[in-house]
């Protein structure tokens, strides 16, 4: 049996007023999850550098725009601080013998910003990172540049891909991950309140159904940098894997801002769903070869990060 216990840690970064508080709080919660059996621990979007900006005052007016706030955070956190925080997360992963995706962060790059998430291994190394690959017009106006690769990581015998923010609402991302053999899609999101189940369902839930993989959505909650986020982190599986057919394996409910869950992702469940309803068996590759590229002939293509910065 190939199975992975995945823990999601949803915290409200507004609860932490200094970097020190954040380090202590997060380290304790990661240890709790590891002690309870989690082997992969995932945190929501933007949390990776939330500690670095804890207690810093934004310039007046910055908080009026959520994305301007993110750009501000990226501009005040130095390369040195980023490396320090990466070391902290690597140490947390190593001491707890877990894979850790401690959320994501905007980071300055040549000509703008990229939205990046690192994956730390139980050996205390960064095994790789993912960049956001699709952006809204607002994100682009704020300076966000997109990546052009979707790396896949081997985590405890399962193949894991990471999606960031807007990516979740573009089915191409989930499909390209699944075509590479991904079993678990980890999605780091930060969606402003108010929550609607339909917006969430149109995101990772449907990607999971279309590709018959597991989906872990770690979603930012609480008030942070002037915006309010709705939380509601969830673990999804194919509807065939759940008794009520809802496709929700675990969830944090509306009332909880800071909370956690652990869910066991058993590849046997995926095999069951794929056997009952073999979606990939009926791809019409001829149609896609001939027509799909037409869909992407657009003058609205996202701005991408310069080639020499993608591997940085």
């Amino acid at each position, binding site marked *: 049996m190939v199975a992975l216990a995945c823990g999601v840690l949803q915290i409200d970064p507004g609860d932490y007023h200094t970097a020190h508080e954040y380090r202590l709080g997060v380290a304790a919660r990661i240890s709790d999850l590891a002690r*309870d059996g989690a082997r992969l621990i995932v945190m929501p979007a933007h949390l990776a550098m939330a500690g670095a900006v804890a207690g810093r005052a934004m310039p007046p007016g910055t908080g009026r725009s959520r994305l301007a706030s993110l750009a501000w955070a990226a501009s005040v956190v130095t390369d040195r601080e980023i490396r320090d925080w990466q070391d902290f997360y690597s140490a947390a992963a190593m001491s707890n013998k877990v894979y850790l995706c401690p959320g994501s962060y905007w980071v300055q790059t040549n000509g703008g910003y990229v939205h990046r998430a690192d994956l730390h291994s139980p050996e205390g190394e960064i095994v790789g990172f993912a960049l956001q690959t699709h952006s809204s017009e607002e994100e682009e106006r704020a300076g966000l540049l997109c990546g*052009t*690769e979707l790396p896949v990581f081997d985590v405890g015998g399962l193949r894991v891909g990471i999606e960031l923010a807007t990516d979740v609402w573009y*089915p191409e991302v989930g499909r*390209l991950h699944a075509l590479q053999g991904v079993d678990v899609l980890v999605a780091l999101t930060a969606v402003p309140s108010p929550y609607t189940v339909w*917006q969430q369902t149109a995101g990772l839930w*449907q990607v999971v*159904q279309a590709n018959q993989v597991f989906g872990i959505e770690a979603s930012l909650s609480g008030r942070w940098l002037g915006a309010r986020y709705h939380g509601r982190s969830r673990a999804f599986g194919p509807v065939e894997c759940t008794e*009520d057919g809802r496709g929700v394996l675990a969830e944090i409910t509306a009332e909880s801002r800071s909370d956690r869950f652990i869910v066991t992702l058993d590849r046997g469940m995926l095999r069951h769903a794929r056997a009952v309803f073999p979606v990939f068996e009926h791809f019409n590759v001829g149609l896609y070869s001939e027509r799909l590229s037409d869909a*992407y002939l657009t003058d609205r293509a996202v701005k991408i990060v310069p080639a020499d910065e993608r591997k940085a």
Partner: protein
Amino acid sequence: MSKLTMALKKQGLHALLMSRSNPDAISKHVKWLLRHDARLQHRVSPWSDPEAAASRRQKLRVAAVQMRACAVGSGKAYAELVYRLAARAAWEGASVVVFPEYSGLPLLGLVPGASKVASSAPSLEDASAMARGIGARGAPSDLFALLAPYAQRAYVSTFASVARELGVYMISGSMILSYEAGGVTGLQNMGWCFGPDGSRVARYVKCHLMPMEAQWDLKPGTSLAAFSLGGVGAAAPICMDATYFETFRVARAAGADIVAVPVANPEPYNMWYALRGIWPRVQESQVFGISSCLVGKFAGIEFTGRSAVVCPLEMSPGGDGILAQASSHDDEEIVVADIDLDALHEYRASNPLRFNPKLYSNYPVGLYDRARSARREERQRHASHGTGEDRGGGVRTP
């Protein structure tokens, strides 16, 4: 049975099926039905006035027909069935009427005895086997192949006549019919869009088969037809096609503002299972969706679904992406909604889809074949090991 008896029986069946699928009789019957339909005596086709038609390009009333599976004994009876449902939609003001996948299934009843068989047989295979005596062998594909030339006459003449008499666009749903291309013949799940003058506007073919249909040896379509509903771009992928986001990307690129999806879900109703089709596709492609479902039991298969008119979340009054939806998943209904094309275009302008062609070009289309093979191998490997893990099921959260 001697060869002569067999030949005579076959000839007799041919004559009977030709008579039962007579297009002229069907066309006349539809005219007669309209003449005797008091509701529609003074109705003017929404497409007949050029000025009104032009404004209709911005606002359309559309209808999804939720149709109960049944069998009929003649082409005229089939025309009555289709007319009755379409006329209700027309009476409610619809100018585009969409029927479900397998809307031609009632025509199996043209085969003598098949009507009774369809209601009592535990499966289509059994229904087909029970019809052996009249020429068809056991496999459903044989029954469909036997019936195809006659079914197509009745099917096409029915929808063409009803569209013409009611003066509406009709997307016929679908039926398993035969095709011939490059000297190759076979069966496909197909349908047509008929114009308000009864002309065939487009033919569409299901491009992604259900496992059951693949077993019946149906062939998937190789392209997605896009067509115009009086100036409004549209496409009609069928049922399982909507499981694949690629279908809707292609439809949108071809200019579709409306994507009609005839559906026949052969499973007990569950909202979440049903939600895997048109609803997410509409959200990610920013089109209007019309989903028309076949419901009821036929030859042991239970069809369920709640027909609906779907739109992007932000355009729906309840924020759920639904403009109108059937109240039941197992009963006949007509679902009608007004759609505003101007509003759709405004929505698209303020929420443009923004793609990453560089990313997509890094992953060649050959990955699809490789992924399919990998999953096939996984299935076979697991089946041969027989570890029983495929039972799946339980959710385990420590």
